[in-house]
């Protein structure tokens, strides 16, 4: 298993898109920290960028990578290797290389400019989002046979998680404006890993004071130790459920 992971990682890290992704993240975080005097403000900008770019790159790159390694998968399946192991090796390979790139692009500048607990949380959230969206991409790629369709679905999923979901939440908020919806909102936000990450970090910053009553409710939940533990547990579920479903599907797939 380790050997296949090694081949996958070497193959991905040589990929030009991975190098471009690392440089893009590095440039963004370096310039943000260099331009802003206030590190907290720089981090807020960085957060917004990370929450949009990381899911997009993780989803699209993984989906395309899996479709492009169809031959590789075919070759491995005809060898004395367990199917679940093959699929997990690809998963670990993607996770390792994308997380490494993210650490290089965001982790390194953060380490230099802003060594705080909140910054560490930002890096951790970015890593989580990377893994989650790789898992979701693997599920999408194993379910859909056609490459163009698979990539389309990946883009739709990204739009859903970064744009549509927030729109839906806003819509619900307005519809039920007369009722106390603050507490259900906490539960609803669990259905989007991007939101969990955003809220967790926002509440650690001073800007959360601007969020009014909802912010206070959120702080009551996400601000406490148990709240953070529960949120991370939910993020873990977001990794495991799609990953396990995709392994199960791959075990019975015809190649």
């Amino acid at each position, binding site marked *: 298993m380790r050997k296949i992971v090694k*081949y996958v990682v070497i193959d991905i890290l*040589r990929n030009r898109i991975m190098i471009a992704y690392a440089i893009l993240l590095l440039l963004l975080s370096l310039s943000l920290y260099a331009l802003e005097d206030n590190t907290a403000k720089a981090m807020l900008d960085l957060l917004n960028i990370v929450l949009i770019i990381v899911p997009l790159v993780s989803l699209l790159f993984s989906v395309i990578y899996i479709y492009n390694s*169809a031959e590789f998968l*075919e070759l491995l*399946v*005809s060898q004395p290797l367990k199917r679940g192991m093959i699929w997990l090796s690809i998963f670990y390979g993607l996770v390792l290389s994308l997380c490494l790139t993210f650490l290089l692009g965001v982790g390194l500048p953060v380490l230099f400019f802003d060594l705080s607990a909140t910054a560490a949380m930002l890096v951790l959230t970015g890593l989580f989002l990377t893994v989650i969206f790789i898992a979701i991409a693997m599920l999408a790629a194993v379910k859909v046979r056609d490459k163009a369709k698979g990539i389309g679905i990946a883009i739709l999923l990204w739009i859903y998680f970064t744009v549509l979901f927030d729109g839906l939440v806003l819509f619900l908020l307005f519809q039920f404006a007369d009722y106390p919806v603050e507490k259900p909102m906490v539960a609803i936000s669990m259905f989007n890993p991007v939101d969990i990450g955003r809220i967790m970090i926002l509440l650690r910053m001073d800007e959360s004071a601007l969020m009014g009553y909802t912010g206070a409710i959120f702080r009551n939940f996400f601000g406490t130790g148990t709240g953070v533990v529960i949120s991370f547990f939910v993020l873990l579920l977001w990794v495991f459920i799609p990953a396990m479903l995709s392994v199960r599907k791959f075990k*019975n797939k*015809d190649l």
Partner: protein
Amino acid sequence: MIIATNVSKEFGKFSALTDVSFTCSKGECIALIGPNGSGKTTLIKSILGMAVCNQGFITFNGHNIKHDCNYRNQIGYMPQIGRYPDNMTIRQLFSMMKDIRQRWTNRLDVELVEKFGLVPLMHKRMRTLSGGTRQKVSAALAFMFTPEVLILDEPTAGLDPLSAEILKEKIATVHQQGKLVLITSHILSELDELVTQVIYMQEGRLLFHKTISQLREDTGQLKLSKAIASVMRKETAI
């Protein structure tokens, strides 16, 4: 060695294999023959576990292949169209396959690598290779780990006459060593000197499984190609 029992495989509504059963044993050289789309490749993929059959089961040395993947150590497979990771060089591909299979076999058979002249091409990436060279790589890989069973899907398609001759010689040698060889091919004349048995498939069904001498007796034809042609004519007449 390989026993298939009532194997059926459907892709959506299309049924690729219907109720196929057969038995192959050591030392046989079996030709899988049938028109295009008759399910030969699907059958081979089912044996290799690349396609999961909907009904029935296949056993290898008495073990159901569904539960254990280790039987594939004993199979060398040469696909119809060899598709490999584009960015890998031939050397990397070989070393990866050795990594995967080395702990099972210590004896490596690199005769085909040398005879096909692949040694000077070792540094080339798979994507830059011609179709024929890729076929040579597939063939070399199939024979490299001295497997007990060889499954060759259209082995000589795309090979130049000289290489095809080298490959046929190699097949004949391993057959004489008492290994089981399964070949599909459309070029019947080249199977004449190799095979001992024939499995004929049509529209996903196994029509017959006979030894070649019996087939000759039944059809009254000496050449395999003529014998099969007469069978096919009879089938279409019905």
